[in-house]
């Protein structure tokens, strides 16, 4: 078998061994273990094939458009935060432009004194190596993107490291903006959050393109909620409409902890999102929310896994998609209940609002239950705008397009309402409006 066959080339696309070596050279300041991790990840990436049509984890996905060719690892940019269309009160902000920290606001002194850390992965790799080793991409990749997750680790440049110590509450959101600029730029955003025992925090990731050109984004976020912690995580994906996006989420929920995550999907031509929640100890609760506005020829491909590993754990998933034009969505969700996870309470729901006859929503809900005393419900629905509701709004002078927009927001409100932070809720609404 020849290693230089054309098949191998397209398998790795632009991410050749030379490109990886060049990337490693930019990481000279990083500790040896970090570089070793990256090398191992690159080897794994290079060895794994691209997804095949026959892979169950890629059912309904358009795999012909997942090309890794024609892109280049981003060079540092000095762009500042561009969150003018997504503004709310934040306690600290980090902005990464093309994988490099470009601006930051300091934490208030009282929170810094309590031990809250909002910094870069690069700094954490040196100063908080144990935490990073324990939590950075430490969970299994089970949803089909092993190759791309390995690519992420291999090329991740920098990212956010957020640590909230035991018993500390951070009221306003910590905001991380990930910017991409320049045609063919590959970015690898990362946000890692460790919320220790009985802490509380809200973290927001915002992914945005600085220009309309096509980017390649391959990001990940690791969330860890320790005993009794309450973590709210919001990710708003607003890449340019020609971007190819991968995003991997891992959530670990410990005893009596609660994680609420909300993913808003607006941008990209094709966006794959994988989300894994592991309920590891009794009382753990993961609330998984998502909203998607799919239009034009966009494809949003969402794969989820709720794993109940301990008794008395709860998960509640609600993914809502609004589809227009010829857009496509795929939702594939699996609830797994381990043998000793009795009294599991798991819920999974995917709802699609079809605003066009040419749009296509695919739903693949699934259950794998090995305990006998559980409550698991799942369901998927697709519906159109109710013509009577539309007529009612039109009879008040609201034009059809505006009526459909109002009804779409009405459809989304059930999810947005779950967010306690009112300014953040409003900012998300405004951001969604930019798509109408």
């Amino acid at each position: 078998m020849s290693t230089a066959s054309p098949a191998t080339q397209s398998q790795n696309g632009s991410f050749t061994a030379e490109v990886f070596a060049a990337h490693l050279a930019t990481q000279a300041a990083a500790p040896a273990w970090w570089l070793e991790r990256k090398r191992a990840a690159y080897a794994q990436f290079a060895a794994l094939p691209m997804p095949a049509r026959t892979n169950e984890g890629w059912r309904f996905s358009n795999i012909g458009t997942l090309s890794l060719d024609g892109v280049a690892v981003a060079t540092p940019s000095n762009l500042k935060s561009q969150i003018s269309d997504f503004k709310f009160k934040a306690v600290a902000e980090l902005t990464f432009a093309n994988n490099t920290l470009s601006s930051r606001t300091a934490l208030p002194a009282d929170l810094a004194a309590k031990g809250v850390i909002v910094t870069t992965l690069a700094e954490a790799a040196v100063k908080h190596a144990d935490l990073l080793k324990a939590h950075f991409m430490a969970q299994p990749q089970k949803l089909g993107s092993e190759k791309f997750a390995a690519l992420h680790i291999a090329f991740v440049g920098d990212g956010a490291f957020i640590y909230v110590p035991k018993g500390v509450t951070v009221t306003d959101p910590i905001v991380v903006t990930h910017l991409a600029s320049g045609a063919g730029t590959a970015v690898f955003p990362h946000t890692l959050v460790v919320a220790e025992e009985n802490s509380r925090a809200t973290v927001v990731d915002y992914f945005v393109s600085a220009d309309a050109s096509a980017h390649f984004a391959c990001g990940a976020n690791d969330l860890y909620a320790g005993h009794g912690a309450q973590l709210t995580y919001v990710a708003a994906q607003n890449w340019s409409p020609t971007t190819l996006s991968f995003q991997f989420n891992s959530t670990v929920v410990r005893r009596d902890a609660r994680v609420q995550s909300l993913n808003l999907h607006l941008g990209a031509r094709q966006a794959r999102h994988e989300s894994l929640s592991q309920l590891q100890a009794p009382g753990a609760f993961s609330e998984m929310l998502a909203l998607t506005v799919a239009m034009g020829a966009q494809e949003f491909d969402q794969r989820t896994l709720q794993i109940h590993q301990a008794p008395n754990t709860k998960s509640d998933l609600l993914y809502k998609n609004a589809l227009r034009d010829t857009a496509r969505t795929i939702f594939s969700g699996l609830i797994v209940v381990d043998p000793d996870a009795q009294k599991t309470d798991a819920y999974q729901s995917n709802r699609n609002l079809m605003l066009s006859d040419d749009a296509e929503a695919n739903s693949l809900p699934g259950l794998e239950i090995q305990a006998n005393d559980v409550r698991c419900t799942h369901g998927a629905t697709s519906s159109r705008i109710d013509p009577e509701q539309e007529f009612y709004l039109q009879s008040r002078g609201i034009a059809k397009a505006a009526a459909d927009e109002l009804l779409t927001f009405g459809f989304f409100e059930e999810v947005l309402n779950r967010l306690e932070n009112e300014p953040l809720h409003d900012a998300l609404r405004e951001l969604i409006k930019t798509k109408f």
Partner: protein
Amino acid sequence: MASLEIQNLQISIGDKPIVKGLSLTIRSGEVHAIMGPNGTGKSTLAKAIAGHPDYTITGGDVLLDGKSVLEMETDERARAGLFLAFQYPSEIPGVTIANFLRAALQARLAEGEEIDASAYYKRLYAKMDLLKIDRKFTSRAVNDGFSGGEKKRCEILQMAMLEPKFALMDETDSGLDIDALRIVAEGVNAQRGSAISPGILLITHYQRLLDYIIPDHVHVMWDGRIVKSGDKSLALELEAKGYDWVKQEFAAASA
């Protein structure tokens, strides 16, 4: 002085004719009551004038200030000054009354013009107070989980905010208790007495609403037509005698 002229209007649902040639002219400030047995086409008339897509106009015309509305979209008709208070208002989960009314008012502004939020809320609260609707309702979803009476009050609130030239009120009195009926009637009368002074087509089954909103004309609808018109005393007569005598008179006349 504005006018709404319904000229020999014929309306079908599918192939089935429901309204079979109905003419009526309403002017600003006038109240025309339409009464008639269930299923005679009263709601059909009101919804078709508002532009509901289920109904086909097979003949006749509807003129607002001399201009036909039949080629207009529902929302254009509304912006031109028509308002339908629904017999069965739709529930719109997730859309608050405040956002909904704001969108409706925004739709009436020119491109680039924005609603002044504080003036808007001031006016909204004043109208709500008048109709004795709790201000908390502004953040509730439109009609979602409202009682029958709350829905009807909410229809009148919308009418008060949108200030139409003509209102088609379809059984606004049904579902209202005695106190609510009086409050709603006062709300409507306040609009009649204002500079807006809308013309009103009032569809009802009961005389008691007409004690509060005194009609200038009362029409009896039967099998898709107006078969008898009179003044407010006609409503009293119907209340006393039912519809049988109208049926007989109509049968005799059309035989």
